[in-house]
């Protein structure tokens, strides 16, 4: 209950960076969770303050990134690891600049496949989770199939997919769906099942049918769980698209990876890996932002510190 009093000089319009998370030992160790009501001067609450808080939010990851790049640069420049395995940041940068249109085009292809695959996986996964969570009969029938589809290594069935779906976008999207589907199902089922039985009772006394109970009670209740699954799924969807491109493609970052590997072109390989990671990170952050908008009410979010990277 007792979460928030007015924060010291915090911009009220942006409460997400207000206080340390409720009950985190950091906070516990230093004092009660809720800071006193001493509003700062108005100046601190405008743009300057926003910038200051942005800086505060990103300096740590920025520092980390800088440190990583330095280590990388040091290792590569000194050739502690040979350059054909680990190129220098400079080489990678040059490759990126020289081939930007080629890389951009292929990034777009992979991004496209990933997004479509993720959206389909989210919808199908949620649908499946609903069937499983609602009907024990369905559960017994569907669960084995879902599980089976998950445990088969996708890289092994990728050639079959190419045979069945040709070499266009379809097999990549199918792979992305297959690979991203499972976490959505698992977290969806767990979320839908975790509804307080008394709320279900409540809905029943309101004469609500399954759909309304789902829409207004079970689904919102499942969201915190579900978002965990979607976060895992979105990063896996990238992998699915790339694996699909390994098997049969003449575009996309997975294809560029094959090219780079075939030519031992480490700079291109790293640029390619960087772009793949970038897609994953950007989509992950998009899901996190969606989460922050969808479930601001949840205990995990009430604290004010969102689960983001920035």
């Amino acid at each position, binding site marked *: 209950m007792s979460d928030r009093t007015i924060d010291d000089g915090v911009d009220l319009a942006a409460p997400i960076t207000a206080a340390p998370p409720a009950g985190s030992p950091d906070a516990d160790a230093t004092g009660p969770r809720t800071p006193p009501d001493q509003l700062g001067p108005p100046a601190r609450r405008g743009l300057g303050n926003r910038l200051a808080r942005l800086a505060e939010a990103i300096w740590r990851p920025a520092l980390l990134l800088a440190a990583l790049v330095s280590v990388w640069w040091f290792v590569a420049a000194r050739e502690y690891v040979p350059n054909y395995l680990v190129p220098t940041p400079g080489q990678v940068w040059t490759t990126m600049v020289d081939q930007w249109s080629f890389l951009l085009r292929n990034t777009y292809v992979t991004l496209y496949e990933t997004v479509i695959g993720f959206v389909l996986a989210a919808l199908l996964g949620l649908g499946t989770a609903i069937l499983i969570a609602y009907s024990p009969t369905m559960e017994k029938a569907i669960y084995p199939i879902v599980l089976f589809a998950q445990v088969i290594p996708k890289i092994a069935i990728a050639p079959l997919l190419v045979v069945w779906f040709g070499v266009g976008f379809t097999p990549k999207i199918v792979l992305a769906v297959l690979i991203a589907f499972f976490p959505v199902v698992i977290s969806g089922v767990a979320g839908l099942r975790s509804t307080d039985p008394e709320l279900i009772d409540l809905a029943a006394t309101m004469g609500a049918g399954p759909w309304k109970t789902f829409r207004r009670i079970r689904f919102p209740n499942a969201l915190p769980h579900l978002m965990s699954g979607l976060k895992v799924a979105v990063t896996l969807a990238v992998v699915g698209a790339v694996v699909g491109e390994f098997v049969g493609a003449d575009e996309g970052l997975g294809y560029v990876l094959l090219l780079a*590997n075939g030519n031992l072109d480490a700079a291109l390989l790293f640029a390619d890996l960087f772009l793949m990671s970038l897609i994953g990170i950007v989509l992950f952050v998009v899901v996190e932002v969606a989460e922050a908008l969808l479930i601001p009410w949840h205990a995990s979010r009430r604290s004010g510190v969102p689960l983001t990277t920035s």
Partner: protein
Amino acid sequence: GSDEQPTTADGRKQVTLTLNWVPYGEHAPFYYGLKKGYYEAEGIELEIKPGGGSGKTIQAVAQQQTDFGWADTPPMLKAIATGMKVKSVGVFLQKGPTSIEFLADKGISKPADLKGKTVGGTPGDAIYATFPAWLKANGLAETDVKVVNLDAAGKVAALAEGRVDAIQGFFHDQAPTIEAKTGKKVDYLLYADWGMNMLGTGIVVNDATLSKDPDLVKAFVRATQKSWADAAKDIPGATDAMAELAENEPAKDVLVKQLTLAVPLLDVAPGAAPGVNPPTKWTETIDLMSRYADLKDAGGPEKYWDSGYTNQG
């Protein structure tokens, strides 16, 4: 892969060729032919697609996802044995590029020097399967050499990093690349030079294409033979063409080296054109594969190869 070969506005047939791998020097003649208009002259609008290994290329041909494939012979034999409806219409690299590669400073000059060494190979490919036989043919026992299993990308890194003493591979592709990247000189022992020759890469076609449009196949093979014959005489021109038309090909000097190493592998009989195979070479390869690589119900060359499409001379 549809029933009717699609055509361009001016009536040329649209044709796809899937390579055995991402573009490297061995493929320069195709780009040369494109540049010189040899394919156009045969009424063919050619599109060259990169591949992901001979096996996948053969499968794409079998599924009619591509019209022609550029693929290695041993996996093609296997593919036909398992029921894929494809055939070779001419192997161009008749001297197999199959080889054992190692850094020059290892002091290896003959198979016997491999004794006690570790060799990286990829399980499932033909080099891997025939390696014990090749050792035997050179007076070594299977246990004299330790084989480490690695995938294609891992092999090269492992060799350069000294994790293995040697690797199995195609010298004309890998050696120049490794040399260019690591600056270390790479040497090799060719299977073919040491008692075991198997046919290398050639053109693979689906049986359906052969019966449906034999003229197209003939035209394609003709253009390809011409491209190879002329490229062999004009290596700089061929690599220039490739640098211009291919995407993300290796560096120019690597291309030149790769093609230079590939040309002798054509192993053309005097007076014959590239891609014309003596049946004995087929029998030898089939024999080796059935003895060492589990090729079942081998049969004769006609099961795998149709000589009727190559221009003899």
